């Protein structure tokens, strides 16, 4: 059997769209053919993880992972129906993130690199969905565990490898019902638009930025005799930033479009991030399902705990501490390298400075007009690009591994 990576080449779309026809016809006539959806999903997930030995290995890792997580969530839901102890909640959460923590530690190569064998494409996104469910079960918002629902949610085929990160209760509402015909037709028309936009982003723009210009700029920077600074780092920064955006936003558009065809209102991941007026605005527009996940499950809960137990007198200190911890954790999630962690801290402190500025602006009635707004967008864009230069890891090569 061939190996088919999601959205990687045009043929993938041909196979997938043909396979989805019966499902789409069903939805058009007001019926969700659940067994067929599960079948198509399983076939395409199988095709992601077959072929050579390394893919097959990842497939086995996925199966073991999903059994582990399903048992945890299932057991915790049952437990939570009668009891609610805080240590049990923390233990279950830690056990559910254990696989990704092991994979990240193995990724450093410093310690037990063979642990990376328990990883597979998409593990971090599956972990986000599962941990979100555990937290909502703790809050009493999710009361029952239905194995099939759990699997369909966590393994939702269009978003399996890289998101967007949906929410369980939102997703279940979609699969339990059928969009009415007008809504479904609107989904389909959006799907067509997103697919074409995705093609432009991923196969044209990301191709030029990522495969043509970026390698050239990098090679020029590496050829610079100065090992601390090269002017070529600036074009590396911008080409990488645009490559990252068009590649990931293109991928996300595909995932949302396929979700729509399957009658699921998958949340959007990007909303014109380069038009952000400040860093906070940026995180409401960039990789939104990830940043909202951190906002709802980390930041707000951290603030809630800190305020309730009065850890700090000032609310400003509270929010600053929460910003830094929240973004630091996000940095760690990307991987245990100095540049991911620096990227997290950069954004954490960036948000602290941003908030201080917003308070100053409010207090002193700083003038606001088209020019100041244009400048704010320009500044935010460049701050974000600097953070991407850190994030991309090229500085690691440039400084330490030439």
């Amino acid at each position, binding site marked *: 059997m061939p190996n088919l990576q999601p959205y990687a080449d045009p043929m993938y779309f041909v196979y997938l769209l043909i396979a989805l026809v019966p499902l789409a016809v069903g939805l058009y006539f007001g019926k969700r053919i659940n067994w067929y959806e599960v079948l198509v999903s399983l076939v395409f997930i199988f095709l992601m993880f077959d072929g050579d030995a390394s893919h097959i290995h990842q497939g086995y890792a996925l199966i073991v992972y999903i059994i582990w997580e399903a048992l945890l969530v299932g057991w915790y839901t049952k437990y939570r129906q009668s009891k609610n102890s805080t240590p049990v909640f923390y233990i279950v959460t830690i056990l559910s993130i254990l696989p990704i923590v092991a994979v990240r530690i193995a990724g450093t190569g410093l310690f037990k690199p063979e642990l990376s064998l328990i990883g597979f494409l998409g593990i971090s996104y599956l972990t986000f969905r599962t941990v979100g469910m555990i937290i909502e079960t703790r*809050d009493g918002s999710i009361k029952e565990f239905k194995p099939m629902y759990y699997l369909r949610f966590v393994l939702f085929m269009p978003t399996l490898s890289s998101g967007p990160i949906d929410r369980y209760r939102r997703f279940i509402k979609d699969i339990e019902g059928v969009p009415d015909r007008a809504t479904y037709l609107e989904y389909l028309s959006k799907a067509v638009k997103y697919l074409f936009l995705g093609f432009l982003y991923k196969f044209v723009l990301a191709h030029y930025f990522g495969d043509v210009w970026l390698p050239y700029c990098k090679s020029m920077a590496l050829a610079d005799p100065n090992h601390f600074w090269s002017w070529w780092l600036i074009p590396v920064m911008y080409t990488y930033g645009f490559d990252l955006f068009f590649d990931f936003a293109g991928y996300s558009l595909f995932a949302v479009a396929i979700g729509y065809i399957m009658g699921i209102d998958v949340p959007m991941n990007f909303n014109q991030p380069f038009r952000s007026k400040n860093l906070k605005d940026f995180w409401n527009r960039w990789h939104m399902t990830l940043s909202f996940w951190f906002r709802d499950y980390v930041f707000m809960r951290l*603030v809630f705990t800190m305020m309730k137990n009065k850890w700090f007198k000032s609310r400003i200190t509270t929010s600053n501490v*929460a910003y830094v911890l929240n973004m630091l954790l996000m940095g760690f999630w990307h991987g245990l390298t100095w540049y991911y962690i620096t990227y997290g801290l950069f954004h954490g402190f960036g948000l602290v400075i941003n908030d201080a500025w917003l308070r100053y602006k409010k207090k002193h009635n700083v003038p606001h007009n088209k020019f100041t707004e244009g400048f704010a967008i320009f500044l935010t864009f460049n701050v974000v690009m600097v953070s991407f230069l850190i994030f991309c890891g090229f500085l690691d090569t440039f400084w330490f591994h030439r």
Partner: protein
Amino acid sequence: MDVQAEVLQLLNNITGEDLSNQMDEDLFDTGLLDSMATVELLLDLENKFNIQAPVSEFNRDEWNTPNKIVAKVKSLIG
């Protein structure tokens, strides 16, 4: 107890604005509420009305205007 007046008072303390004539204003769009202020609001509501509104029950679309917040609080008081 007048729930609406109490909620408006809490919102006034948090946002620094009297919202009584902006009952349908989207407080997140205008920037009057953010995640931080939301948590303060949830804690205040918990203290004032003795209601539990866990963070995961907090859906921005259902809590974004003074009117909706009042309605939510009324439904949680039961």
